[in-house]
């Protein structure tokens, strides 16, 4: 990146950085969160609640490994239930973090600096949650390694023509590339943590993690080039990953899945849900850790606009899906859409409409957009709406296919809900550990923003 970072607009509350911030003050504000552990009551309460849910998740996983997937509500015809809806929901959230960070970097948007680290961490954690569901929903999880191509004595290979195998490659490649992208950006900040930590043990630990980074100008040149190139690789990978998830459905001939709109529709959904999750996380953290000087009203405003824009792409996708079904003249395709709106799962459909279509429209008003409470509620509703959307896609398509004799109903069991709640717990627990031990905002990039601001003056 060769152009210096400059604020988009300047003015008292349009700034991306509160007035009076210096290199020293931003470094201190950000590194004090992991080093001094302020607001321990908030952290411990949140972490312990999340940890309890992780225990529930472990119980649910132990039980599903013992008894098999029959403990869930799945059965023919609805063989894909919560597990797949959860997987798609998590991988969607996971897709957005890296995409937000990488695409804003490539487009030279300076407002990424305060949110990129958290968005990337959110990605990694969400990919962990998503990966978990791909593992536990397998009937025989002990054979998961069959997805890996290796020259075995069986002489068998994975089915490379199947989107499910594409998915395995996509999610593992994505997880690894996101991890490297995050770590390469984190490296200089780990060195700052090493140099600021009070105890010898911490200094050694952060020193090891930072690999002895010393801010050499020649290293910076390599690091910056690598970072941009990784962003350039990660941004299209995001599109590949969620398109492939869309293929998992679209390749099947089932009405309601078999549609060419699915890959781009899923990518848009991923960005929409990911942006809402970033907002859901950032709004409370900003308030608790008093980061208003770094994550300003302008950041929230911009994120709200992105949320609304991606929301409109979703509305367009919903429209296309329905329009294609109607114009295709295919009675099965038409029936799926009517059945979604007035069939047995109509409640879910209308919740989806209310959360994903109606709720973001409040953000047209700049007054409401700047109201942190309203924005938080909208973001939360979109998270719910996106989960319900995946449920509607998975379940309502399966429960009424071509032959009425093979129709059925899906009712989630306690273990379905326990696994979902447990995965949310895992997400929050890992996020809290991240906040506790690593800098949640990139100190390097905020320092650069401070420097660019000083140069302007």
């Amino acid at each position, binding site marked *: 990146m060769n152009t*210096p970072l400059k604020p988009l607009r300047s003015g008292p509350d349009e700034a991306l950085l509160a007035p009076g911030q210096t290199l020293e003050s931003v470094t201190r504000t950000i590194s004090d969160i992991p080093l001094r552990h302020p607001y321990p009551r908030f952290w411990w309460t949140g972490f312990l609640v999340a940890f309890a849910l992780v225990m529930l998740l472990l119980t649910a996983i132990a039980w599903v490994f013992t008894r098999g997937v029959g403990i869930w509500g799945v059965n023919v015809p609805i063989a894909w239930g919560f597990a797949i809806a959860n997987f798609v929901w998590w991988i969607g959230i996971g897709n957005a973090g890296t995409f937000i960070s990488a695409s804003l970097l490539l487009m030279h948007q300076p407002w990424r600096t305060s949110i990129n680290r958290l968005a990337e961490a959110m990605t990694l954690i969400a990919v962990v949650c998503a990966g978990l569901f791909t593992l536990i929903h397998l009937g025989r999880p002990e054979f998961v390694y069959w997805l890996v191509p290796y020259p075995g004595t069986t002489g068998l290979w994975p089915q490379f023509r199947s989107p499910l195998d*594409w998915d395995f*490659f996509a999610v593992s*490649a994505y997880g690894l590339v996101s991890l490297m992208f995050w770590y390469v950006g984190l490296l*200089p900040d780990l060195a700052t943590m090493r140099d600021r930590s009070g105890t010898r043990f911490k200094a050694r630990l952060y020193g090891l993690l930072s690999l*002895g980074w010393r801010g050499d100008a020649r290293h910076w040149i390599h*690091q910056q080039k690598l970072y941009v190139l990784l962003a350039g690789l990660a941004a299209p990978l995001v599109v590949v990953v969620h398109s492939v998830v869309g293929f998992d459905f679209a390749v099947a001939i089932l009405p309601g899945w078999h549609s060419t709109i699915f890959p781009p529709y899923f990518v848009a959904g991923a960005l929409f849900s990911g942006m809402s999750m970033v907002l859901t996380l950032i709004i409370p953290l900003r308030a608790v850790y008093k980061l208003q000087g770094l994550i300003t009203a302008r950041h929230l405003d911009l994120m709200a606009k992105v949320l609304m824009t991606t929301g409109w792409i979703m509305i367009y996708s919903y429209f296309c899906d329905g329009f294609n079904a109607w114009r295709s003249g295919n009675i099965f395709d038409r029936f799926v859409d009517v059945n979604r709106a007035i069939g047995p799962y109509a409640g879910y459909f209308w919740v989806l409409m209310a959360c994903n279509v109606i709720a973001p429209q409040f953000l047209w008003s700049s007054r409401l957009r700047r109201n942190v409470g309203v924005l938080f509620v909208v973001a939360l509703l979109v998270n719910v709406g996106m989960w319900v959307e995946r449920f509607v896609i998975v379940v309502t398509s399966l429960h009424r296919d071509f032959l009425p004799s093979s129709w059925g109903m899906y009712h989630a069991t306690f273990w379905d809900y326990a696994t979902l709640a447990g995965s949310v717990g895992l997400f929050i627990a890992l996020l809290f550990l991240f906040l506790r031990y690593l800098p949640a905002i990139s100190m390097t990039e905020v320092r650069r923003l401070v420097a660019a601001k000083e140069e302007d003056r």
Partner: protein
Amino acid sequence: MKARVHGLLAAFATEVSFREALRDLGKAGCVRVEAYTPYPVESVVLPGATTPLAGIMLLAGLAGTGGGFFLQWFATRNYPLNVGGRPVNSWPAFVPITVELMILTSAVIGVLAFFCLAGLPRLHHPVFSDPRFKRASQDRFFICVRADDPLYPGGSVRRILTDAHAESIDEVPA
């Protein structure tokens, strides 16, 4: 015998004075200069400060593309599966995994190449012996004129650093 010296380490409080010192050192003919900054400074001109990473990652990406496609081509040939009379080498179905492996190979090789080029991990380095150097990762800019520089330890180096308002100038042991 004189103790071995790594170089002369100077600290600067601002990016402007740091850049000025670096420029003047370059003009005076210093070549073995190390610079340390708390964030990437674009306009730093140092001899040998270029990166071959783009080329390396391009080659790695091409290798990943070839390897990824070969893997699938070979495996479907090794265990042919006739699905509705489709050809064994059904290449359009191999595109997604080929793209994914291209990106993964390029990224992994890029990160490894970065570590090699930067000589990391290297947990100890002479400049760390200066306690002030802790601020190189926070809010100070450092220049180290190495002992093997032709101008070292001439008075001109010290004078350039002082003229550019260096906060401190110290010799660091090797």
